[in-house]
């Protein structure tokens, strides 16, 4: 993908005045695009908007909106580094004060959510506004198991969805993200997800989180766990590795949201047997590989889990924390090939999911369990820091 001046062919806005807010839309089906545009006209003053859309939009349907063509973007399931480069170039070219990036599946974001994200970066000192989605208990589990706890423990951020696909950005935040994204694009990794929360934490920028209501995702047949988990965790581990000097220092976590966001009711009982079987199959086949990464104590914990019935299947939070931290360390040290490492994490993640569903089925609120897991990550951070600094030290 071309990285220099991707917006050069963009049509200039019809009105001469600079827009307050540039709304950058990624590739999405036509009906979703129309839904997003309708939401925008309902929630924001159209005279201050400039919309950059990759698809052709009928201007007669939205005469009040200034719509320009955005460069064609790849149909990714999340915002990628290349999207952030394009976004900043567009904002700089049109002299916008702030940006609203709407990724795929943003049609479900309501008017209130759009307004909150936009106003935060336009009218307050917030540099990055992110949505807090209202999901069912069994949704967004990679986020709950790995992304949120790691982001909270290492970057002292309570943002519940660090890899949100809708973002409000101030111009300086967009510039910083574009700089980070450009480095990835230069080495032909433009499709890699970027971590705005981590960047904002390192830069010391203000981050705001806003309720965004229910979030519904369409089916993406090419998207499966074996692709998503290695991609997301690999990108996050790499970002953590690059920002090691920042997160090793202790930081104060902002106060918790009160009360905790309540999950929507579950869609029904979930059969965890396939996930437990996957874990058991992996235990019998991948034990040697895991033993290169995990210390004996964690292996013993997994052995006990292997012998547990599906009904009693519970992975202790401390064990999951150590698994993630040791995989992060192995990623940094390149103990084994990184592709192999992230592939070997998938069955362990499925074991956590099975355990989480069992915990939720026992009457514990899923959100409380996720908060407990995140707190366990925070409590065990000294282990990560110590092993990061002295990886060869004895580790039973």
């Amino acid at each position: 993908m071309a990285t220099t001046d991707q917006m050069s062919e963009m049509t200039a806005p019809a009105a001469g005045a600079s827009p307050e807010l540039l709304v950058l839309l990624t590739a999405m089906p036509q009906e979703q695009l129309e839904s997003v545009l309708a939401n925008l006209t309902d929630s924001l003053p159209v005279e201050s908007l400039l919309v950059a859309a990759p698809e052709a939009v009928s201007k007669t349907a939205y005469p009040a909106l200034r719509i320009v063509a955005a460069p064609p973007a790849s149909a990714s399931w999340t915002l990628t580094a290349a999207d952030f480069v394009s976004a900043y170039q567009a904002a700089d070219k049109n002299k916008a004060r702030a940006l609203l990036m709407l990724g795929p599946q943003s049609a479900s974001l309501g008017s209130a959510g759009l307004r909150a994200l936009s106003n935060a970066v336009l009218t307050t000192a917030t540099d990055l506004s992110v949505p807090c989605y209202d999901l069912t208990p069994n949704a967004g589990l990679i986020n709950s198991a790995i992304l949120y706890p790691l982001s909270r423990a290492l970057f002292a951020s309570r943002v519940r969805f660090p890899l949100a696909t809708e973002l409000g950005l101030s111009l300086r935040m967009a510039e910083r993200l574009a700089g980070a994204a450009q480095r990835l694009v230069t080495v032909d990794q433009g499709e890699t997800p970027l971590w705005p929360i981590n960047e904002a934490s390192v830069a010391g920028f203000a981050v705001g989180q806003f309720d965004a209501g229910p979030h519904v995702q369409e089916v993406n047949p090419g998207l499966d766990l074996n692709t998503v988990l290695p991609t997301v965790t690999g990108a996050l581990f790499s970002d953590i590795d690059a920002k090691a000097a920042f997160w090793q220092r202790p930081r104060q976590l902002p106060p918790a949201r009160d009360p905790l966001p309540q999950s929507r009711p579950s869609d029904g009982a979930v059969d965890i047997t396939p996930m437990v079987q996957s874990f058991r199959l992996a235990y019998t086949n991948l034990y040697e590989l895991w033993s290169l990464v995990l210390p004996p104590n964690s292996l013993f914990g997994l052995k006990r889990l292997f012998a547990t019935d599906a009904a009693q299947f519970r992975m202790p939070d401390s064990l999951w924390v150590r698994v993630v931290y040791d995989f992060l360390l192995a990623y940094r040290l390149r103990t084994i090939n990184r592709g192999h490492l992230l592939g070997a994490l998938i069955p362990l993640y499925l074991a956590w999911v099975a355990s989480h569903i069992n915990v939720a089925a026992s009457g514990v609120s899923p959100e409380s369990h996720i908060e407990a897991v995140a707190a366990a990550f925070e409590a065990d951070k000294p282990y990560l820091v110590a092993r990061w600094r002295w990886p060869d030290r004895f580790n039973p």
Partner: protein
Amino acid sequence: MNFALTCETFRTSGTEPMQGVDFMQNAFAMMLQPDVNQTSPPSYAGSDSIWQQISESLHQSLYRVLSLLLAVLPGLVAFLVAVVVLSLVGMAVSALLRRGLAAAKFDDRITRGGSNSDWMTSSSPSALIARVSFWACVLIGLIIGVSAFDASYATAALPPSSLMPYLTHAVGAVFLLIAGTLFARFLARSVLIEAVNAKLQYARLLSLGIKWLVLVLTGAMVLDHLQIGGNVVELAFGILFSGIVLTLALAVGLGSRDLVSRSLESHADRSSERLTAPPATSGADSGDSIRHF
């Protein structure tokens, strides 16, 4: 009559008359007698001459061995000098590179460049470059040394030996063996992880099969490179390779027929459920209401 004539002939044609012995003794004595045309007649008569012969043989073999050593010695010294000198050069180049790259902040530039390749080692990029340059110099020294050794050996006007061709081929064979073993291990691990994540019950069998296919291929290439076995190796490799493939096919097709059919059915079920799933179950696992992302 004829017999008497023969005896008479012997008596008259001998160089010296043999008296007091019968005919058989005469005949044996004649067989042992030296040829009159021989220039230096060996003396087998006394024990002194035998010891002399042994001594001469020992001297000759000692002479041959010493000559061989003297012929090889310059080549050996040249080999050692080449390796030592190039190793020292390699150390110097490595140290210079290390300092130069550190001064240019090469590691920081690479890290900031976002290099995220799976193939990078745990060492820093500058340390890796310095190490590679050192070992490249050592390798060049080895090649120069072996060439010098080979040249001096060939010009020594000694009988050709079968050692040198194998020595030179052995270096390539060792590299082939290492590369093949590493590739087999990498491939086996990749297949194992992918198969486990695809929930295939015969993941280990598949991984082992792939590993041994690559190892057998590597072994055949090494033997071929060493020119050992000739057509026998090719034939044996063909039989063994086909045998492993056939075994895998039979194991998967017959022995694990039920497992394969179950795997295929579950895969087909997952695909059909994915296609027919409502929007709320995007990214669902096994058709349940689980959404990982």
